[in-house]
């Protein structure tokens, strides 16, 4: 505690001296011992933080920034299996990969644009459902009742389960001939007439993928929102209910504004995850998704590993990185609270 008190420039006991020029916090009295020691400490401090951050910075460079820059570089070269093991010598093609990816006349460009549109729709739907379910669950469990702990654990199961295991179980359930979904919907409930629908082929595959993703994502929204709700003081609700506010009014005027900062982050993170979703379609449909359910990440994978056109895959990744960066930037500026005190 002594150190932090000194660092913050808090008044030391028995002080009454002139302000210390090295500390920016105004007229702070310092004990004589600290006054003599400070210049030395200051010198050390100027190096120490950098020295300490250096290993982490190097690792960050190695793990994140390096591969990212490599990915950007790949977008500008023609990287195929012919030069894969000697990629440093792959021919530089400038913007050609971007032109190929963005040309609305070509099959590749058309696929790219329709996939981006589909992925946006997918993201909005998945994040929307996940948020509503997460919010409902969090509000429901914020009141005290018997069995709350069990329900809370139960709600978190999809999040706790390894993503692969959950998705492959869904793939089995969605199987047209032997899957549980058709057994329940068609055999037991007699929906859809006699015909067993295909859930993993054609149009339905898009819906099936949404179901699996919402199932996997909503517990995260639930967890975050429940944590946010804990910070809302109970007496605010008490006061509101004494004033005669309905539950809906309380939700709208107290809950929503109070969890706004958490919501801002939550929606951003969920949208980024969903937009870049790869695991679920890959496990549900294999390396090639149905046309109606191809998302951006699997498309990049197909271009990179199916057609071995790593340059094109790289260009598409860079385009998306830029788009997501811009979108996130404006979102953060507009939605998230400003100021440094939001620690």
């Amino acid at each position, binding site marked *: 505690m002594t150190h932090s008190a000194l660092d913050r420039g808090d008044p030391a006991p028995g002080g009454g001296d002139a302000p210390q020029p090295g500390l920016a916090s105004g007229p702070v009295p310092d004990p004589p011992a600290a006054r003599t020691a400070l210049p030395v400490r200051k010198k050390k401090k100027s190096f120490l933080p950098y020295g300490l951050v250096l290993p982490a910075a190097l690792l960050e460079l190695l793990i994140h920034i390096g591969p990212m820059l490599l990915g950007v570089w790949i977008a500008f070269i023609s990287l195929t299996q012919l030069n*894969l093991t000697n990629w440093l010598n792959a021919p530089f093609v400038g913007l050609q990969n971007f032109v190929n990816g963005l040309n609305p006349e070509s099959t590749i460009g058309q696929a790219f644009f329709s996939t981006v549109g589909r992925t946006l729709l997918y993201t909005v739907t998945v994040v929307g459902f996940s948020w509503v379910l997460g919010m409902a669950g969090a509000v429901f469990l914020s009141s005290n009742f018997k069995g709350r702990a069990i329900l809370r654990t139960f709600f978190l199961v999809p999040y706790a389960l390894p993503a692969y295991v959950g998705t492959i179980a869904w793939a089995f359930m969605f199987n047209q001939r032997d899957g549980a979904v058709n057994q329940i919907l068609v055999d037991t409930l007699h929906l859809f007439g006699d015909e067993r629908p295909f859930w993993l082929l054609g*149009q339905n595959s898009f819906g099936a993928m949404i179901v699996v993703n919402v199932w996997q994502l909503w517990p995260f929204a639930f967890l975050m929102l429940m944590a946010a709700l804990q910070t809302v003081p109970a007496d605010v609700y008490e006061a509101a209910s004494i004033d005669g506010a309905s539950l809906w009014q309380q939700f709208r005027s107290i809950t929503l504004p109070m969890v706004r900062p958490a919501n801002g982050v939550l929606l951003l993170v969920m949208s980024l995850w969903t937009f870049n979703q790869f695991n679920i379609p890959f496990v549900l449909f294999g390396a090639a998704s149905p046309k109606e359910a191809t998302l951006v990440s699997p498309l990049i994978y197909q271009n990179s590993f199916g057609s071995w056109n790593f340059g094109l895959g790289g260009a598409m990744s860079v385009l998306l990185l830029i788009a997501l960066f811009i979108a996130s930037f404006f979102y953060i500026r507009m939605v998230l609270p400003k100021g440094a005190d939001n620690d």
Partner: protein
Amino acid sequence: MKNPIKVLSALAATASLAFGMTACGGSSQATNSDTITYWASNQGNSLEDTAAKLKPSLDRFTEKTGVKVKLEVIGWSDLYNRILTAVTSGDGPDVLNIGNTWAVTLQETGAFEPVEGALLEAVGGKDRFLQTSWSTGGADGKAPTSVPLYGLAYNMYYNPKMFKEAGIEAPPVTWDEFVADAKKLTKDTNGDGKPDQWGFTAAGASVSANSHQAFVRGLQNGGALFDKDGKPTFDSAAQVEGVKQWVDLMATDKVMSPSDAEISDGSQKVDNLINGKAAMVFDQSPVKNFEARGFTDWAVAPIPMMKAGASGPEGTQSHVAGINLSVFKNSKNKENAIKLAGWLTSDAEQVALNKAYRSLPVVSSVSSDAAFQTDEVKLKNDALANHALPMPLIPKEGQMETLTGTAIKNLFAKAATGTVTEADVQSALKDANNQMVAAQ
């Protein structure tokens, strides 16, 4: 970072992370010269069965050479992706199986050891091998980067009991006869108004199996996937016709269950034959599955052709199918990896392994062994020798398989959920063709 406790904990975290990474790096770098890794494709009726059948051979190898083999059997739906990842990262096994149709594509990556020098010597030279199988090892005029290991070819397997019930005397020879018979064999046996016995079954979602059919059906109709100049012609009239015949089995002829559109694993279609859900299937080696399940109601015939007795490209019934063996160039244990390649292609192991997996030996010296004198194996041999052409031996073969196979997979999905017109086939193949052009 003003709080020393924060500083210390950050430092500790960084140090432990750095240490952890070094430790990981260290362990993956560590090589034990007595152990090599081998990725084997699934040749048995399950991954476990493949491993169990391979184990005696590997044990004998260890006994003889002192080299231990760490085996991993990989299912067909994962194999291509696993190889690509290994090639891309440079971090793969010492020895691995590849589908022989991928050999030229993978050769171009430069990730595999050329079969020359010590490796060629270890496998006993190219003259030991069947000419057709050896030709799949790599592009013309270059040292191959894979050696044949198991030979395969497509045959038609059918249920003679069902044929008899449907009044069919002999297996169909032409495509028209095949479709007509398949219609007779498609029946509603339980009276619910819907067929539950189908004339034919196939893995509609298998990318590679569909691309094989695009190849064979295209050739039978007088087409080809590439023209003389190496340009893709996936959407030529003959190719469209051939692919349409294939997809029509579900879409128009309705002799294939729509649920076949979800099958991506070849053993599931064989299951359909064993379970009596279908009467005919095209496959390369289902007999091991038949035997494992005690299924005896099967017979075998050549794949139907457009015209009886056709020869040349129009008489194609199969591609030169099979599994090749490659040594990873990055192997830190090349000497032992080469020893294993020599071992698995030796006469004795060729007999043992091909007998166990019901595949064809790829070395001519053992084809006269009693194990390979059954009617089924003889038919397969005939298909391989007289009615098979290698899939296009071009560097972009892998892309071609992915693009045509995926297009057909999507067409089957469309057939299962609606209708497929000639224009749909044409447009799907045109898209695949355009992407192939862009990839070239």
